[in-house]
């Protein structure tokens, strides 16, 4: 909790309150920032009164339109740890694990406290346009993407029609 990276402390279950409120303040600031300058085709906001659990929506993807809902869960040591981003809407994508979790460099080791929720949303939106088959969570989809792009896009569109309308 003291510094970035090493803060994953499952041993001490009581996080210092100062740290919680610091992360809270940071999330609040990001919310204001997001409100003032919302990224295109994206929106997000806290679910209920829990500042650490957000819902985001991404619309108008190349996946035949579709409306995708995502869970964004901030750890208490945010921004030193990345938020978790999970699709609540089924999607056919090589960088999204079968359980919906987004697998992206910046949400793992590539995370930097300088990143904000706005940037995360833009990054998620950009992998929908340009998947990253070389760091795939689902190799099968990545292979198809590289081997037969047209078929991949057809299947992805069909998924959207069925599950994301």
């Amino acid at each position, binding site marked *: 909790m003291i510094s970035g990276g090493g803060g994953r402390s499952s041993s001490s279950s009581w996080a210092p309150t100062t740290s919680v409120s610091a992360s809270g303040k940071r999330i609040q600031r990001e919310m204001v920032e997001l409100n003032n300058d919302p990224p295109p085709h994206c*929106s997000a*906001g806290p679910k209920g009164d829990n500042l650490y659990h957000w819902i985001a929506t991404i619309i108008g993807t190349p996946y035949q339109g579709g409306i995708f809902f995502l869970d964004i869960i901030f750890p208490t040591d945010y921004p030193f740890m990345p938020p978790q981003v*999970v699709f609540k809407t089924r999607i056919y994508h090589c960088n999204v694990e079968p*359980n*919906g979790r987004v697998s992206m460099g910046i949400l793992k080791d590539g995370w930097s406290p300088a990143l904000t929720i706005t940037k995360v949303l833009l990054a998620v939106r950009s992998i929908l346009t340009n998947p990253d088959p070389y760091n795939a969570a689902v190799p099968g989809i990545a292979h198809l993407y590289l081997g037969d792009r047209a078929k991949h896009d057809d299947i992805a569109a069909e998924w959207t029609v*069925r*599950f*994301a*309308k």
Partner: protein
Amino acid sequence: MYYRRSNIAARIFDRQICTPAPGTSVHHARRFYENLVPSYTVYEVEFPDHSFRKFTDDGQYLVSFSRNHQELIVYRPRWLSFSCNDEDCDKHDLPAKARRFDSFFTQLYCIPLVSCNELICKDFFLYMESNKFGLFATSTAQIHDAPAVGGAVQGVPSIEKITFHLLRMEDGEILDKKIFSNDFVNLTHNMGVFLYDDLLAIVSLRYQTIHILQIRDSGNFVHVRAIGEFCREDDELFLNSNAQGMQLSNKNKQHQVPENHVENHMHQGQPNVGNSFLSGIKQRLLSFIFQGLWNEETDDTLRIQRLRNKFYFHFQDYVDLIIWKVQFLDRHHLLIKFGSVDGGVSRNADHHPAFVAVYNMDTTEIVSFYQNSADELYLLFEKFGDHFHVTSRNLMYMNFISSHSNNIHALEQLRSIKDKASNSSQFVKKMLASLPFSCQSQSPSPYFDQSLFRFDDKVTPHACFLVYFHCNDQMGLAMEKPIGHPLETDHINVVCLLLLELISATDRHRQSTDHPIKFILRNSPHTLKFKIKPGPEAGSMDGRAKKISSFLFHPFLPFALSIQQTLFLQPSVVNIHFRR
């Protein structure tokens, strides 16, 4: 004029020489019911001790169940026939055999419907008029504290086995069965099941699935689709066939448990996220709400604020909504009511927030979505109420069930209550509580046609009670509330909801009084035409004992049964009302 109206022969002459205005001949013909009324009562008929369910809408069968809830007994109604030797027969009393039930009904068959520990749900019966099929349900006992396993909704009871039996009414042969295991379908007053033409919608409250079945002419159930987790019939197949290499886990069905998990373990730094996808119907619903809010506002900044307050803040509330009840609007559209888990199971649902959505099951789109207090929906309900009442189209007289949308008198009643209502939003909620309508819950009997008759519309404290329990959709036993607040606002506001008072076309048990129910001509001379009095002729011995009456009217003959029960397991009293 008076003479003509009260004399059937004069009316027939009239019919010979006058042509009614174009398009009104049916209405004119129905006016004959003003002359043909079930005004004669045979009290305390000797009858087999069954619980009588109803006449089928074509009048062909009377459905009853044995007291032990194991057998189905079906009767064919027939007219009492007797002869008399003297000249003025009318002065004679009816022969003694008129007091026997089998002078009026012939038993067609009696068949056991249940196996093992199941019992017949005596509140459930649907009739498919076109094929003369009957749909019955049997079930085992409810388990109230059933654990929510395998995707079941927490807090919904479970029934080990629910069986739907499709019967050919003609000979009682069971044609097909559909079994639901460890599930919960609300069978009271057909609430959880809706039949439209040959399509059947069954709502599994426990697994939040609307099962659409088709009843074939051959007498088979054919599964059409299941709406809930998925929307299209082949979605699951599609998902599984595409999941090669995706090693799709089935864990996503257990969405309740991991969710709580997240919140409990938040502080441990590494939240454990459940792989919980939204169900198909929820995705459609949330998309619809989202799109509506998105399109309402064009300015980006204002839009995101609006979404934050109106959508994200309530997101979990929308996710937690469950399907309560469903009806067909036509072959493609369903009217679905969503509400909280508490309201779905409790009898007193109108205090819980609820929403209704119109869903097109072919395009899998939500067409509209309203809260149950929406004025717009109420206006639609008031003006186009009949569009919510979908009935068999084969029988013309089914089109004459009075509602505030097709009958000026019913509308007037509704309006006057609306004007008196102290709280308009409460009034709207109460009215909309009846949506979606229960299937086949109204009698097409012409004596409930409000353009022909009005019945006892004195508002008494008793009437308030009836209304109160009517709205809650429950049986009389649960409605203990002190008499003496006859005008207690909310309850009384709904008095006219469905003609209601002491008797109505809606088939329900009603608390009865010792006073007969009067049917008065709607048109001049506005005279009392007949009375229906349940219970023994002399009134009951104990005036205080609470009595419950039910009335079974034949769909088109001047014939009715009234059944009065006292609560203490005494045999019920059955009277037959008919035109002598």
